[in-house]
């Protein structure tokens, strides 16, 4: 099954070193970053969010597969719902903010990103952290009286730079095998 099952471990546990204590200054500043970027996206300041991306970005949301528990470590596929780098993310952002006909988000969805359960680890690289967080996202569109919802675990690599934290890697591990929303015209 090597063609279809990812050999990459999207949680990158091998790169985690000492855990950064909850409530410490570093932990708080990283939690602040996660809240800040969620707020930018929820308020459609996509340009400012794009400026938080590092130029070596890897941004992926692998396809999930229902497996027997014996293959629990083979839940994610080589294909994804996102499979992006810095340039391809900038193309997405350019399309959303510079054109007047990106119809999948015009009129825009009303989205809230609830970020919680963050754990932070130091890495072998000074000023870089592995960050795992939960995402609960609600998306309301047009006159729908209900929400499209999504929950996921995100495993990020954050890098402290002179201009603040940058997102260098995000692996979005979705809880849905069959997505309930018709597209990802939004960022996670």
């Amino acid at each position: 099954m090597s063609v279809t099952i990812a050999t990459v471990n999207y949680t990158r546990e091998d790169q985690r070193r000492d855990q950064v204590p909850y409530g410490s200054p570093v932990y708080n500043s990283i939690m602040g970053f996660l809240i800040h970027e969620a707020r930018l996206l929820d308020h459609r300041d996509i340009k400012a969010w794009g400026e938080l991306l590092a130029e070596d970005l890897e941004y992926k949301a692998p396809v999930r597969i229902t497996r027997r528990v014996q293959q629990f470590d083979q839940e994610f596929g080589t294909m994804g719902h996102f499979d992006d780098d810095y340039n391809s993310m900038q193309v997405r952002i350019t399309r959303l903010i510079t054109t007047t006909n990106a119809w999948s988000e015009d009129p825009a969805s009303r989205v809230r990103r609830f970020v919680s359960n963050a754990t932070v680890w130091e890495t072998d690289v000074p000023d870089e952290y592995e960050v795992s967080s939960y995402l609960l996202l609600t998306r309301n569109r047009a006159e729908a009286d209900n929400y499209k919802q999504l929950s996921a675990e995100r495993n990020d690599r954050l890098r402290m730079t002179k201009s603040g934290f940058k997102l260098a890697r995000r692996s979005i591990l979705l809880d849905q095998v069959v997505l309930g929303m018709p597209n990802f015209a939004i960022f996670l």
Partner: protein
Amino acid sequence: MRLQARQDYLKEAMSQFIDLENREVSVAALHDQELYELELERIFAKAWLMIGHETEIPDVGDYVVRLMGEDQVIVARAADGQVHVSLNVCPHRAMHVCLADSGNARVHKCIYHGWAFRPDGSFIGAPIEKEQMHGNIRTKAQLGLKKARVQLYGGLVFATWNHDGPSLDEWFGDMKFYYDMLFCRTDKGLEVLGPPQRLTIDANWKTAGEQSACDGFHTLTLHGSVIDIGAMGGEANTEHESAPAMYGINLSGNGHSLRCIAADTSWALAHGKGDLTPDQRLEAFPPPGITPELLPEVRRNMSAEQLHVLAKAPPVVGGMFPNMNILFIYSPLRDGTLGAALVLHSIMPKGPNHFEWTTYYFAEKGTPEHIKVMMRAAATHGTGTSGIIEQDDSDTWPHMTESAKGVIGRTETLKYQAILGENRPADWPDKAKVYEGFGKDDAQWEWWLAYHKLMTANA
């Protein structure tokens, strides 16, 4: 509904839903429970459906679970090395036999009472053999999982419940000549680049189904943003400048369809090479997904007529009736070169107002690994869940379905009245219906005619 009542309904419904004379389809057909039940029986239980690719299950025992209409099936490679498709319903008490999406199993054992089946669907037995818990009315040979008829084509797994219907070749008809240019062009063939994306869209399956049959026109408006950011565009000072990818050759047969479009009419990266001979064009723009090292194989595997088509305007988008959408398109890769995205969607109904949109990405097996990785990224960027092209489509189909819920809205019609008419160029093969020029409604109307034919065929 009783059978006779259904048949009466159908007779009435087809004449009300489809106006053959004026080429209109009632919007009501997009939201109708009775019609939907009949579609499951008459289309999804009769048609050849694409449900995967053999490279997903390379080893004996490998399986994936897929949908045929609303029926789950197990697609498995059995001990004979062949691909078998069996209904994922235990003949004992209707429990799903396979509970995972994919895996490897030499024996599929139902977790309810333990009835066990081989990957080819045949019944092995129930626990406590001496008690013969399957009774003595039916033999073991009669108690296997219900088997679908299977045919591989270019590695794609096609299956149907219509055991006495047309062969897959007959089903394709003349279109096979063109499909071969996509699926049977290299020595080793295609492979999947991973397990498919799956998502549910709140729309009737026919909204995406009819669009797959060569609706090129929507590109200019619905996908205008992709043109505006400069990713897609026709050569300056030509008719393609304001209408990229609009002029080409549309093909149709048995409801199947393809659009053949020259690279320089649609992609900025391909501009400035208009004066080449056909042979030079083939070298300059190998068909989407063909790297220079694979081109000699294509030349060897394709006929002179097929090579002419590939050089002039290769097939790039289209569909297979009833529910498959093909995009074998040129696409810029990460390294700045013009590469390709090879994409197939299946559109599986889940009630009149929902369908599952399944997206597969492919590459030729002979493609260098680093290019496969870039092709996968390009396909994900342009198509499927987050594709900057297709995210606009998946937002449109639900609106069409919503329109059908209003008692006035459902009296409107879908109109297919912009017609080119068959006009095969002299140098084009005499295969299928051929429409050259600005892509119009011809092939999409043929899709509805195929739908009408299947829905009204004698049961």
